[in-house]
């Protein structure tokens, strides 16, 4: 084949510019740390990338929801713990009051303490976390219990649900009626009244109080089980997050060592292309015929 100067010049130019193009690609990959920077470079990577990113966003959002759930549950748990203690104290007092050796003044004192305990429970039932009443179902803007003699309960018993994983919703509140119902406050009120004007009804009230105590314990057990479940979900989300991040990385991230190696070898190709071009284009027969 005849090879002419124009062909040599064109080829040199083409090779050098192709080589520049490759260098540019490596530069882009190194500068961004990403294998691709437009979908057409690898459609599969691009679409997968979109999918993984969304998954990661979702997981991170669920983790955010999770921390909200923890806030509710931990506060509920401590409130219920407190409630148990209060009711147990009330029970001790009632048992003490049943002792026939007590005089009227002693009973009055116990009645006053019971009154205080009752008021304390009203406060617990009206626990607010970040401006929300956590023992009033979804009616978080209203206090469920109004203090009075006896205190009146108007609670909402809807479940407060939070999505903690794709399609998995968890109830994060305690059903208030299982704990702070009208019966509880009525019992406490009756105990208080009974102590002021004894009608020897304390045995009956004591068993009522025991019933309420059991209810609270049952609700605590249930809450504990749910917290366990939440912890499981949290672990799973952490794993999923790790996997999603790794998938994104595997899918999109550039292999720096590989690219630097390729860059170096391309650089030498580029130098070769330039120097060959410089050598080959110069001399023609003209230069040797004098």
């Amino acid at each position, binding site marked *: *084949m*005849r*090879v*002419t*100067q*124009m*062909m040599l010049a*064109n*080829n040199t130019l*083409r090779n050098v510019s192709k080589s520049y193009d490759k260098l540019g690609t490596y530069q882009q990959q190194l500068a961004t740390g990403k294998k691709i920077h*437009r*979908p*057409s*470079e*690898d*459609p599969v990577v*691009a*679409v997968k*990338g*979109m*999918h993984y*990113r*969304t998954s990661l*966003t*979702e997981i991170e*959002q*669920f983790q*955010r*929801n999770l921390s*909200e759930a923890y806030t509710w549950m931990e506060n509920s748990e401590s409130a219920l713990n407190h409630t148990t203690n209060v009711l147990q104290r009330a029970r001790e007092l009632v048992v003490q009051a049943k002792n026939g050796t007590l005089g009227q003044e002693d009973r009055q004192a116990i009645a006053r303490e019971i009154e205080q305990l009752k008021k304390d429970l009203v406060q617990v039932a009206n626990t607010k976390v970040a*401006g*929300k009443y956590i023992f*009033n*179902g*979804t*009616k*978080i*803007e209203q206090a469920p219990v109004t203090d009075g003699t006896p205190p009146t309960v108007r609670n*909402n018993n*809807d479940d*407060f*649900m*939070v*999505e903690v994983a*794709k399609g998995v*919703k968890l109830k994060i509140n305690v059903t208030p009626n299982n704990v702070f119902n009208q019966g509880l406050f009525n019992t406490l009120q009756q105990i208080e009244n009974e102590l002021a004007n004894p009608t020897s009804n304390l045995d009956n009230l004591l068993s009522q109080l025991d019933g309420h105590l059991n209810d609270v314990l049952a609700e605590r057990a249930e809450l504990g089980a749910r917290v366990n479940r939440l912890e499981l979900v949290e672990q799973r989300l952490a794993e999923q997050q790790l996997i999603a991040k790794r998938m994104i990385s595997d899918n*999109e991230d550039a292999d720096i060592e590989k690219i630097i190696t390729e860059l170096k070898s391309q650089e030498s190709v580029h130098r070769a292309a330039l120097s060959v071009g410089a050598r080959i284009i110069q001399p*023609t*027969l*003209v230069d040797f*015929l004098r």
Partner: protein
Amino acid sequence: MLSTFHGLETVRRGMTAQQQALYVTGHNIANANTPGYSRQRVNFEQTPPYPFASQNRPVMPGQMGTGVEGGTVQRMREEFLDVQYRGENMKYGYWNTRAEALYKMEEIMNEPSDEGLAKTLDRFWQALQDLAVNPSNSGARSVVRQRGIAVAETFHYLSSSLKSIREDLKNELDVTVKAVNSLARQLNDINKQIGEVEVHGYLLNDLYDERNRLLDELSQYVNIKVTPVPSGGSALKIAEGRFTVELVDRNGTSLGKLVDGNTGAFNEITVKYETTGDKYVREIKLGNDSLNFLSFKENGKIGALLHSYGYVGGTGLYPEMLNNLNAMAKAFADQFNAVHSRGWSVTEIKSNTKDGKTFFTYNPSDPAGTLDVEQTIKNSLDNIAASASGQIGDGSNAQALAEVKNGTMNIAGNTTTIQNFYESLIGQMAVNAQEAKRLSQNSEVLRQSVDERRMAVSSVSLDEEMMNMMKFQHAYNASARMITMIDQMLDKIINNMGIVGR
């Protein structure tokens, strides 16, 4: 009997012919870097020998050569390679233009990234989740509103950017059509000149080159087929004649004549657009004949522009993407609105009357371009319906709204989720762009290799010209030396003979 000066005449011809060859060599060297130039060669021809073979010939043994003359000056060219080159150039024109159109589209869609529509939707979804957890928090509501506006604005941006690129494609199509028409006119003019001069026995090498150059240029815009029409008269055998240039589809079926070598007429391509709606190409004509849009499939730059911009009854890359975005925006907004209007907003809870307000508004004729957040929601955050039960603290409707993104719906006839639909849009675009880029590179390589072979035949090698220069110069010098020799010979006869005893 040979004449006294026979030899002188022979070498004079030799000198003249070598001189001519040297001038052609000079012309070649001068044009070594001229694009489209084909090297030229003098076809030396022996002059008729003496004596002529005829009845009255002088009787002598054999014939005696009478030298050389510079015959035709011929271009060195392989026409078959031109045909190949134009075929590849046409494909390159198509795929390169298509790849560019898709390149721009990719840039606008900007996926996967932290700024694209997918991310905007993810953020909106996040804001709704936050609202679901904190339904009474006005901060969460305000984030939902802002991110809802961001979703709408992203749709706008995509829609309006795609539209403006599409407008650019239209301009490019118009300019390309003008270029084709101008080339047709120039080719026709050259045809005329060639036809007028060839009949007198001339070769118009420069015009042939120019015509080839124009045909090469034309071939990137449309697929062409060239048929020569002999000029007649005393035209030489190697004269190229006038060219008829036909527009053909990718299978080689003729669509009509762009330049007619027989009649000396040429036809222009005209493109007509619809005046309403998406302003598709309504008609494309060659002269008075309407052309089928489908015949422009994989057919030069015009084909690529036509199929990117879109035409009536068919589709185009840009209208398809716009339509899909519209379908997506519409389906998303409708579904979102349906869920939103089922819920209770704070305003509704307060007044205890349900008015079923929507969240997004759009104009059905252009959903992606006009998507917006309802004015009522822009006016008051209390109009976002996060509650399903009518309790302010209930976030289950916000939850349901967040699920719209992952819920199946009907988008442009497909039952899919908005996420999957969008991913498939991007995937489709990516595959299209990848294919176009690959085929553009392939056709470029093929075009280049054909061009290389063509240059191997036609382009000027300075070494070769140098060799020729030496060859011709030596032959010229030797002829001149021959004159000196004959001069001495004649000197002997004329001046030194018959002087015996003087």
